């Protein structure tokens, strides 16, 4: 099963909607709640990152019997130092965004913790593509 979502930078109310839809699909499919929680965290964080840092983008989810594969990509300014960005507490979010409870510097570390495979393709001015796999059968 495949799902596609547009992450619209102008519609803040929809941020998190892609993750919610995938979560509902997994619930209907009877996937184990602990797996659904991991997918929800990883996808939400990457969706919010695309929204806040990437100026919107798109998300894809592919679900089969063995795994859930999610790709979230944006055409934003990219991450110049990925190693630094993976550290807990490090964030480039501005004050306005932080007041809203984002920018804690936990997004990428949370994604890493909750995925079985993670690949981030990014660079200055190149946008960011986050490829995540969460296995259903260990």
């Amino acid at each position, binding site marked *: 099963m495949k799902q596609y979502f547009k992450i619209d930078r102008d519609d*803040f*109310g929809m*941020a*998190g*909607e892609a*993750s*919610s839809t995938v*979560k509902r699909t997994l619930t209907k499919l009877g996937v184990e*709640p602990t797996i659904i*929680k991991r997918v*929800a*965290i990883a996808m*939400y*964080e990457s969706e*919010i990152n695309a929204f806040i840092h990437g100026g919107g983008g798109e998300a894809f989810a592919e679900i089969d019997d063995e795994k859930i594969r999610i790709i979230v990509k944006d055409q934003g300014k990219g991450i110049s130092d990925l190693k630094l960005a993976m550290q807990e507490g490090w964030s480039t979010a501005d004050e306005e965004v932080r007041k*809203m*409870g*984002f920018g*804690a510097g*936990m*997004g990428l570390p*949370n994604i890493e*913790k909750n995925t079985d495979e993670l690949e981030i393709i990014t660079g200055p001015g190149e946008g960011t593509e986050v490829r995540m796999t969460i296995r259903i059968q260990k």
Partner: protein
Amino acid sequence: MKVENLVNELNLVKLTEAGMDREISDVYIGDLLSIVMSKCREGSAWITSQTHMNIVSVADLNDAACIIIAGGAQVEDSLIQKAEECEVSILASNMESYELAWKLHEVL
């Protein structure tokens, strides 16, 4: 305890009609959404001072029993509308987080 009973016990303001029969199993307090995403559990009453649209997604993704907005913060109609659509219950109180948590501990 069900959300509806909590509303009565703590004299909370019911901002939505959705999810009143959900069962509350514990409490989580937090405003940093990444941390709420990893720590808030299914069935938690989530106390926060955030009032923007994204709290509905966070509560929905976590299967939180309800959101309780502390400290008498005002909310936009669009938040309530989104919460009703997602069947997320939002309650409000003039009490601050600590007092709310204390009272929740007494009644749960």
